[in-house]
């Protein structure tokens, strides 16, 4: 970064600050940052932390939309701050808050334990009844079989969809958009045989049937995973499974 000239255009950020044990509730603090056309919100936060206020806390890592750690509310909408350009929010002020629907650890850092527990609960890995012997070679997959789940595998666990989901806001037990989309990712993988281990949780009230199809999860998703679509498709599969349980009560789901 080059030296910042003093007399130049600035943009105002209103950043939510919360110090646990000190503040009763988060408050907005105003900062002016130099305006750069190529700067994203995360660049402005890094500028502030480096040069103005080292106590500002937030998560980030890759700054290129891969790691999924810099999700925040920008003017009330869940965004990856590495992909939210200052130029799209002019003239400001730009309000930066931690992701909605999560407890706040400090400033812009949320507590993500609930998400992590739900993520492991649906067993997001390939489950086999028995591993194929090495001599038989790799598990092969046609391009059409890959296309059946590839979109869901793009999820980066950034949790923007949880921040956008009013159902998750009001029903804390709801597994949520990303977790249910990842369940589809494995259930639709031709190499996976784990639906029998997953369906009870996925097809339950805390799973897909809590979803009222608001659809904002898919709107905010930076990777075009379309969790809302995944959940509606799982609802169709769940309904078919329910009918099938009458026809073949001991059959495989």
């Amino acid at each position, binding site marked *: 970064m080059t030296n910042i000239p003093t007399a130049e255009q600035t943009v105002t950020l209103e950043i939510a600050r*919360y110090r*646990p*044990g*000190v*503040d009763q*509730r*988060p408050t907005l603090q105003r900062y002016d940052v130099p305006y750069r056309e190529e700067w994203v919100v995360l660049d402005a936060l890094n500028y502030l932390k480096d040069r103005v206020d080292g106590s500002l806390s937030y998560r980030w890592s890759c700054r290129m939309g891969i790691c999924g750690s810099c999700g925040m509310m920008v003017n*009330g*909408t869940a965004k990856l701050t590495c992909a939210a350009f200052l130029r799209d929010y002019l003239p400001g002020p730009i309000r930066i808050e931690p992701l*909605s*629907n*999560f*407890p*706040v*650890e*400090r400033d812009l850092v949320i*507590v993500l334990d609930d998400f992590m527990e739900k993520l492991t609960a649906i067993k997001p890995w390939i489950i086999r009844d028995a591993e194929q012997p090495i001599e038989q070679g790799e598990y092969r997959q046609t*391009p*059409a079989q*890959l*296309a*059946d789940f590839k979109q869901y595998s793009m999820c980066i666990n950034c949790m923007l969809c949880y921040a956008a989901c*009013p159902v998750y*806001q*009001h029903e*804390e037990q709801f597994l949520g958009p990303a977790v249910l989309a990842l369940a589809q990712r494995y259930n639709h993988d031709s190499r996976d045989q784990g639906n029998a281990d997953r369906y009870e949780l996925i097809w339950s009230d805390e799973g897909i049937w809590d979803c*009222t*199809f*608001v*659809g*904002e999860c898919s*709107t905010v998703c930076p990777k075009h995973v*379309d969790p*809302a*679509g995944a959940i*509606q*498709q799982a*609802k*169709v599969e769940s309904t078919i499974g329910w009918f099938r349980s009458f026809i073949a009560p001991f059959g495989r789901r």
Partner: protein
Amino acid sequence: MAAPYPRQRSNTWYLANWPYRLFMLRELSAVFLALYTVLLLLLVTKVHAGPAAFAGYVHTLQSPLLIAVHVVVMAFALLHSVTWFQAVPKGLPIRRGEEPVPPQLVIGANYVLLLAVTVIVVVIVRV
């Protein structure tokens, strides 16, 4: 360690933005459709009761209040249909091999189907 600030709930979350507002209107449309079903069922009972009762009911329906109700119901019925058709490719995505069939095509097919059914119904009613 000091406690984190707990997660917040809003009882007016649906006023926050237009997608949320539209979602609530979409869900509310079911209430208006149910209301219209009641009017329609009343019509059936009047048909059963005879020509005089039917004529009386038709006259009642022509009151400005009930016409206004019908206009509102119609608006919600349209919203219901449009949003329902929009949802079809989400729940039933169709792929040809590796390529997904464009959602607009699936939605368009639903409108064509609606038009066809409407024409059939109109023809039956006329005959």
